[in-house]
């Protein structure tokens, strides 16, 4: 573990204060947005998968993007990170217009993403995976690559930073293993650590906790909070409401390609549009425990009414 200790609780409190005056409504303006997206549309043939009017992401926040299956979260996410090829839309990241930029320009501008299905580079070792991601390497130019003296020093610095990150993610013992030999959870860790090698100001995580055991989920959550403590902005897609409410400062809910709600995590469960979207998709899987209780109460009331009506009938 690195000796840096992070005051992650303070980060949450600071963001709660910053976002206190933001209204809980889709497309709400934030006091200091780092990412602003306008009129994003992505169609597949006749199907409009994404149609998002406006979204702002507060600088330094952990923002969760949730929604039922098929809501268009990943498609929207891909569009924001240069992998989606949207039909319409304008979006800027920290003042840089990224609308027409190819995918590799995004990390250069300071925004890096991970993938739901991890993309560890199997036949490269863990440390090579890490070093690959470092920006502005002199030895990445063909002619300079021919003269090792030009890039060797920078390579050592990159390696040092990579080793520090591996230590922080408790991956240092796997340093020289091929990434292809890692387990699913280790790949998630590697991908997250590798993304940080890009020195990003914003990190986009596509379902970072999917298919990961509960213990590792906790450590991934800690790493995400550390990213915020380091001053980075995090936007992540997630299914598990417990996870979302435990770390996010702000929640954006998508359904049927649109953003239907935005709010602090504790308010999400009370939002009628969100409840409808989820219950419409999964009658049997309520959103939260409170939701479940409310649903049961409703059912109880209904039963009581029926009972009363029956009694009345019998009384006649």
């Amino acid at each position, binding site marked *: 573990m690195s000796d840096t200790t992070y005051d992650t609780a303070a980060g949450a409190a600071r963001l709660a204060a910053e976002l206190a005056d933001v209204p809980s409504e889709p497309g709400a303006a934030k006091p200091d947005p780092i990412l602003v997206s306008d009129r994003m549309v992505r169609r597949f043939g006749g199907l409009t998968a994404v149609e998002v009017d406006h979204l702002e992401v507060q600088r330094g926040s952990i923002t969760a993007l949730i929604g039922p299956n098929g809501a268009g979260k990943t498609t929207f996410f891909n569009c924001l990170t240069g992998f989606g090829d949207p039909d319409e839309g304008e979006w800027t990241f920290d003042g840089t217009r990224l609308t027409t930029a190819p995918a590799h320009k995004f990390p250069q501008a300071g925004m890096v993403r991970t993938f739901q299905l991890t*993309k560890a580079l199997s*036949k*490269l070792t863990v440390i*090579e995976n890490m070093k*690959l991601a470092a920006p502005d*390497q002199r030895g990445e130019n063909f002619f300079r*690559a021919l003269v090792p003296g030009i890039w060797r020093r920078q390579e050592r610095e990159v390696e040092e930073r990579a080793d520090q990150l591996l230590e922080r993610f408790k991956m240092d013992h796997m340093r020289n293993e091929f990434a292809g030999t890692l387990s699913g959870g280790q790949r998630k860790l590697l991908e997250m650590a590798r993304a940080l090698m890009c020195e990003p100001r914003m990190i986009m995580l596509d379902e970072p906790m999917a298919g990961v055991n509960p213990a590792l989920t906790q450590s991934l959550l800690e790493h995400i909070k550390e990213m915020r403590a380091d001053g980075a902005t995090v936007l992540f897609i997630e299914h598990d409401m417990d996870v979302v409410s435990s770390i996010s400062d702000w929640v954006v809910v998508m359904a049927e390609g649109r953003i239907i709600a935005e709010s602090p995590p504790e308010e999400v469960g009370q939002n009628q549009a969100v409840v409808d979207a989820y219950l419409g998709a999964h009658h049997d899987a309520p959103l939260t425990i409170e939701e479940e209780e409310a649903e049961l109460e409703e059912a109880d009331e209904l039963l009581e009414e029926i009972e009363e009506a029956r009694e009345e009938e019998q009384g006649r």
Partner: protein
Amino acid sequence: MDLRSVLDNSFSAAVGVDAVIYALAAIGLNLQFGYTGLLNFGQVGFAAVGAYGIAVSVTYFGWSLWVGLGVGLAASVVLALLLGLPTLRLRADYLAIVTIAASEIIRLVARSVTFNDYTGGSAGLSAYADSFYDLNPYSGARYSFGPVQLSGNDLWMVTVGWGVVLALTLMLWVLMRSPWGRVLKAIREDEDAVRSLGKNAYWYKMQSLIIGGMMGAVAGFAFAIAKTSVQPDNYSTDFTFFAYAALILGGAATTWGPVVGSIIFWFLLAFTDSLLRQLVSNDKLPEAIISGTQVGQVRFMLVGIGLVLLMVFRPQGIFGNKRELALDE
């Protein structure tokens, strides 16, 4: 039966000009296919462009051979750009289709009547390599190195040829240990991951195609100068596949794979050829099974069986790392 001469022939082939030519072509393929994962099935097209680059420059334009080398290299860069620009954004198989088609187009254009004045049609061109052999320091008629016999000119060609092979191998060795090489290897594994980390995968693939193609052109130089004539039909698709066979035999994505692969490939071809001929001429093999004229084809069958067995028992090639191969799942 003269087993001694069979071995002499085999060793001569193993260090001879053919091994040099295919080693050069295979080094280029190693960069493209082995390290970057690009399926260039038209390496012979680059070789043809190199060979005709010097032949046409000297015989038609009357320039010197050394200018011709520059022309050949420049032409291979242009060819790589032409093939890469439309296809490198697409899935890997499109490059394979386009390159194999382009290499055939180049051969057919070179042998067409229309360009007879430039390329000599199907007869090809000759008498352009004199300036190379003028520099030959070996004045003797015949040189012997153990079982290997070489004429003075061949020895000069082979010396320069293996020198270039060594230089290019060393260059690739340095490159593949650099951040540049790391990006190429990462592209082979997962292009999207590389893009998501801020590297312009398209441009790196283009560089790999260009540099591997220039190595193909150098193979064409060796081919044209060693044979002192270019004939279009020497530049058909089997050249590419022999080079691939050599590469995979030695081990793709290894430093010495393409070089040793080419040496062994030509050793085996010469060995089976000589052995079969000896057996046939000494009546060890009855005429009913195989005749002298069939030897040329049968040796390819035997070498083919050998390659199949290699893929079964040592799929990573001679130098490859089995552990690495197992990662493909």
